[in-house]
């Protein structure tokens, strides 16, 4: 039985080695100092135990040199730990540009994953080995936490906003996914798996699950919820055109500017009055309660992918194009 007892987690992502090196560095330094203190205490307790002629000397009161030594030396080591720790943390905070994007929605007590290409999974996430994967996470109810020990990534998943992290798996295999922020009755059951596959197998898995891309789903919602009525690309538009919006700076009525990221788009759909775009009237209704977190992700994916000239035609009500709007072969509607 003891042979099967793991004492150290697998290193299955590019972060794992970096986190472990830092950990072992701190363990080595602190173990050395703790050992020194322990040895000194035991030595003193034995050497100076109460007995005649034990070299007792109650005159000693302190030593400025020693105090300075054991104040400054730890400070130096602590700063090394701090800088090293911050570097590892920053590396995980900044995802590579070419990362494959996956959206994750947590709710009591399950994980819902959405791939860019439209596949949905529950409590399982399939990813290819050797490919950076960027996760965008949100929650439908309370705070959860996305934790894959073998990848050394952990991030709280909050309702009402998007969190980001990334990993690049280095080994094919199946890894545990835990919710690591207490979230109620079945917190311990909010666990899943990350399945890391060879690239070719992963592509095969993807095509067997094809559903049409997230952006395509979002385009359907854009028409279904009548967003097109106002956000159209023609002269009767009553709201800003959304083409090429993602990542741009947007000027607001109150003179401020804001970057159009996922959180901004989400807020603009749920709370349209919170930030009014300069030059437009606050006429948009809130879609809170109508659009759920998964649909929101699809809408955002659509807006992210929307390039100039790709806004659907206003009266194109029922028939979405057969082709993915993000793919090259898209036929642009003539305004």
């Amino acid at each position: 039985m003891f042979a099967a007892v793991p004492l150290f987690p697998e290193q299955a992502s590019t972060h794992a080695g970096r986190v472990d090196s830092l950990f072992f560095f701190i363990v080595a330094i602190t173990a050395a100092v703790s050992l020194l203190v322990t040895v000194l205490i035991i030595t003193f307790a034995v050497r100076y135990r109460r007995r005649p002629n034990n070299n007792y000397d109650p005159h000693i009161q302190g030593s400025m040199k020693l105090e300075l030594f054991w104040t400054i030396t730890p400070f130096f080591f602590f700063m090394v730990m701090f800088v090293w720790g911050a570097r590892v943390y920053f590396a995980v905070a900044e995802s590579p540009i070419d990362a494959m994007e996956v959206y994750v929605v947590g709710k009591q007590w399950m994980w819902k994953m959405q791939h860019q290409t439209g596949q949905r999974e529950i409590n399982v996430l399939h990813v290819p080995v050797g490919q950076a994967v960027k996760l965008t996470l949100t929650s439908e109810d309370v705070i959860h936490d996305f934790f894959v020990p073998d990848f050394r990534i952990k991030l709280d998943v909050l309702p009402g906003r998007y969190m980001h992290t990334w990993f690049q798996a280095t080994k094919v295999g199946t890894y545990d996914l835990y919710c690591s922020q207490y979230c109620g009755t079945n917190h311990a059951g909010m666990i899943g798996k990350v399945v890391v596959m060879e690239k070719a197998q992963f592509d095969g898995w993807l095509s067997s699950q094809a559903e049409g891309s997230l952006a395509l789903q979002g385009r359907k919602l854009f028409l279904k919820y009548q967003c097109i009525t106002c956000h159209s690309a023609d002269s009767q538009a009553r709201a800003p055109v959304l083409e090429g919006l993602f990542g741009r700076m947007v000027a607001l009525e109150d003179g401020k500017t804001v970057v159009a990221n996922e959180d901004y788009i989400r807020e603009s759909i749920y709370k349209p009055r919170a930030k009014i775009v300069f030059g437009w009237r606050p006429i948009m209704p809130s879609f809170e309660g109508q659009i759920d977190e998964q649909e929101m992700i699809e809408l955002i994916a659509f807006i992210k992918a929307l390039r100039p000239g790709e806004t659907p035609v206003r009266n194109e009500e029922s028939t979405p194009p057969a082709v993915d709007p993000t793919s090259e072969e898209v036929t642009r509607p003539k305004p």
Partner: protein
Amino acid sequence: MSTVLEQEPQAVPPAPESRRNYLNAAFGVKSWLLTTDHKRIAILYLASVTFMFFLGGAAATLIRLNLMTPQGDLVTADTYNKLFTMHGVIMVWFFLVPVIPNVLGNFFLPMMIGARDLALPKINLASWYVFMAGAAFTLWAILAGGVDTGWTFYTPFSSKSSHTNVIPTLIGIVISGFSSIFTGLNFVVTVHRMRAPGMTWGRLPLFIWSLYATSVILLLATPVLAIALTLVMVERFFQIGIFDPALGGDPLLFQHLFWFYSHPVVYVMVLPGMGIVSEIITCYSRKTIFGYQFVALASIAIAVLGFLVWAHHMFVAGQSVYSAMIFSALSYAVAIPSAIKVFNWTATLYKGSISLQTPMLFALGFIALFTIGGVTGLMLAALGVDMHVHDTYFIIAHFHFIMVGGSVMAYMGGLHYWWPKMTGRLYPEGWAKVAAMLIFFGFILTFLPQFVLGYLGMPRRYHAYPPKYQVLNAMSSAGASILAVGYLFPFTYLLWSLGYGKRSGPNPWKATGLEWQTPSPPPTDNFETTPIVTTGPYNYLQQALTDVEENEIGDQLRAPGPPV
């Protein structure tokens, strides 16, 4: 501490029965419930927090039993969630925060500065009643159905999602907070206004320095907790959006407010323990503390810096990376004064005359366990490591090393050290040494495996877990059973000693503190004549020189050293 007293300190005391002391000054329930004597109030607190400790311990026992098996067979998930909430709430607010200040601090703060009582005796009694009212409220909430939010009450789970007795529990905690504020206020005023002639700040015993730092934290931090918890109640009851994003609130705001209290309060738990350790180490190695100013100022530094590190509980919670960076750096800063203390305690042992009696065993155990807790804190302060171990059993192990390995070990040490003063009776040394060993090794066996579990990735607050973690969990539960027996030992023999322990006399350890210069148990007024202080604390040098004639210790001291 060398003092000038009316009567010779080592004079043979009259038999305790024939002498008036705080225990036989009056009899009857009323004389206890209406007392304003700080010593009697300390005894009231002792009984109350001991009861709470065993309640919280019972919850811990059930938790560890449930975790013997991966499926969590003993209790349901909901019951488990209520158990760990009960364990946390009781142990934090109704045991660890009050235990050392309100029991040992209440009893010895006035005595150690040469005062007859605290500055505000009625406020002191009121603090006990407020504490009991808060405890009654919270216990009622827990027994009448329980609460399942965890002691951290994270929103929006606590304000929206939980269907348990959140509001009554919070009311009890807010009420008991006023008791902390009363105590903090009382201690600060007493240390400023009630010191005996000659008791300058530079001569204050280190236990007093640490209680002073603790009191400042209690005064400044507790109101913020009351604000945070009240806002949770407001949101939960009136549906006003404060923390719940669905109502327009911000869940991280709660975490900021909560940890602004709850991080400093870790130092409320451990600072007084550090003070006790300084008293014990000096007494049982018969030396003055090494680097008095550094140890004293380290307490103040911890209290100040402790207010600037709260967001290190939120490295993975969604704060900005730059904010995380600053809080990581500050967390390393607060580790330095703690390290200074450990080094100074170790240096104090050098060339001492060391006797390993029970309090000393607890104090040395404190240093060992607190050091492990401290250095694992350095790992958590590193952003890159915290990202992996946050909210796992690594954290559980870390803070139990600080709060149980640290505070509770120090409390046990202090309780044994001062027991003869409080009761006039000696505890049985043999049994006590066995208890110290059981507690130390039981603790290590309970919590060391949890570091491994945590780095492996087992999240905290899991009612059930993957089978690969079972062996380490079983080790931990086995350790917990040893620990539980260890705690039952002192409970039993200390009670026994009340009737059957040997009479201790005023100063069985030949300690230097003012509290030892008066009979045991002390009279209601503590001192027959106000003591006048002429030297710093821990003047074991003078005592050793006096002892040369008695030839008991310090044979080699016949030639006095340089003046100090």
